[in-house]
C-alpha cells in the first residue's frame, strides 16, 4: 500500500518535471511563475475526469486549444466588450459548463454511492 502510494508520487513528480523542462525550453524561460501553470492544469484534469489518463490528454487538448483560440481570435476589435484577460478565464468557463452537464468530467467514472 505505502509502496504503491510512494510509486504514484514518484511517477507524478517525474511527469510534472518533464512538463517543467519543456516549459523552461519555451520562449519565456524558467522563472518562478512557472508553478502557476499547475493551476491551469487542474481544469484540464477535471474536464477529462479524474480517473482517466485518456481524459487528461483530451481535457488538456480541449483546454489548451480553447485558451489559445480565445487569446488569438477573441482579442480582435469586434470582441472588445469581452475585456482584458478573457483567455485566462476561458479554461474555467469551459470546465464549469462541462461539469454542469457531466459532473464527473468527460471520461471520469461515476462513483457508486453506498449508504
Amino acid at each position, binding site marked *: 500500500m505505502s509502496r504503491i502510494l510512494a510509486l504514484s508520487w514518484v511517477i507524478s513528480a517525474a511527469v510534472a518535471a518533464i512538463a517543467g523542462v519543456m516549459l523552461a525550453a519555451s520562449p519565456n524561460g524558467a522563472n518562478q511563475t512557472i508553478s502557476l501553470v499547475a*493551476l491551469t492544469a*487542474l*481544469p484540464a*484534469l*477535471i474536464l477529462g475526469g*479524474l480517473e482517466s489518463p485518456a481524459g487528461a490528454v483530451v481535457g488538456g487538448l480541449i483546454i489548451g486549444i480553447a485558451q489559445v483560440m480565445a487569446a488569438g481570435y477573441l482579442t480582435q476589435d469586434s470582441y472588445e466588450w*469581452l*475585456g*482584458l*484577460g*478573457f483567455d*485566462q*478565464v476561458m479554461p*474555467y*468557463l469551459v*470546465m*464549469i459548463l462541462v*461539469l*454542469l452537464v457531466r*459532473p*464527473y*468530467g468527460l471520461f471520469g467514472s461515476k462513483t457508486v*454511492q453506498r*449508504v
Partner: protein
Amino acid sequence: MRPRRLSSMKTSYAHDLRLFPTAWKRIGLVLLLAVVVLVPLYVKDVFWLNLLVIAGIYAVAAIGLNLLTGYAGQVSLGTAFFIGLGGYTVVWFADPTRWGWPLWGWLPMAALIGALVGAAVGPIALRVRGQYLVIVTLGLVVVGQYLFRNTESVTGGNNATIEATHNLVAIGPVNFADLQLFGFVFKKEAGFVYLAWIVVLITALIAKNLVRTRPGRAIQAIRDRDVAAEVIGVSLVRYKIGAFAVSSAMAAVAGALLASYTRFISVDSLDIFLSIQFLAIIIVGGVGTIYGAVLGAVALQAIPEFINRFSDSLPYVATGTGESGISVASLNSAIFGILIIVFLIFFPHGLAALWERTKAFFQRWPYRT
C-alpha cells in the same frame, strides 16, 4: 474521591445546546473580550491595533468558511471572490461620489449581495462534489477577478479607492474612525478594533446558533454522507445552498470591512492565495469549531506581522531591496505552506483539538487514554 464529570459528556439535550458548555470556554471568552476591549484603550502602537483589526476581519470570513467547509463538508476555494464582492459593495454603495450610504446601509447590503451570489453558486455543489467542487470554486476566483477587472464602471477597475468621508463607518453619533468615548480619544485603528470585533461576536453567535440547532445537524449529516442525509429527510437543495449563502455572506461582510478599513481594494490581491490563506486559517485553528476559526485567524495573522516587524533581527531575511536572503513575502508563504502540512499531519483538528486533548489529559489524570 468524588468522580469528576467529563465536560465532553452531555447529560441532557439542554446541556448539549448550551452556548458555552464548560467554565474554561466562558473564561476564554471573557479573556478575549478583555483583550479586545482594553488593548485599544491603553495601546497606542498602530502595529498591535492593526494586527487586531485584520485578525478580527479575517476571523469573520474564516467562521463563514468553517461553516461551509468544516460543518457542511463542501471544500471551497472561492473565499477570495466573495471578499471581493463585499469590498466592491463598499466601493459602489458607500463611496460618497457614488451612493454614499452609511455603515448600517452598506454592511447589511454586503451580506445580502454575498448571500444572493452564494445562493446562485450553491446549486453547482448539488451537481459536482469533492475535488471537482474545489476546482470549480477555484474557477470562481479566476472568473471573479476577470469580472472585477473588466466592469470598471462598477468596481473602479484594478485598483479602486474609497474616498475618506466623515461618516463612512459611523452609526449615529458613534464614528468608529474617529471614536471618542468617556474622555478617551481613539485612533482610527483603535475604533476599527471595536467595529471588527463586534462583527466577529455577532458572526460567531449566528454561526454557533446555526450549528447547534436543526440546520447545523442537517449540514453535519450532509458532510458525513450526503446521500444518507437525503435518505433520512435532509433537503440537500435547501441546506447545501443555505450553507453557501451564509458562508458567502460572512466572507462578503469581511471584505466590506477590509475595504472600508484600508479604503483601497485591488483585483490582484483577490487571488487564489487569499483563498488558500483562509483554508490555512481553519486548518490551523480547527476544522469544525467556531472558536477554532477565531484562534486560527489570530495566529496566522500574527505570524506574518511579527516577521515583518522583526525582520531586521531575523537571520537570512532581506529587509530592503538588494539585500541577500529570502524576502518577507516569500518567507510568509513558505511558513503558511509548512503550517498547513504540519497541522494536517500532526494536529488534524487544529489548535482547538490541541486544547481539548490537553484538557482531557488532565481530566482523566492519573489514567492514560
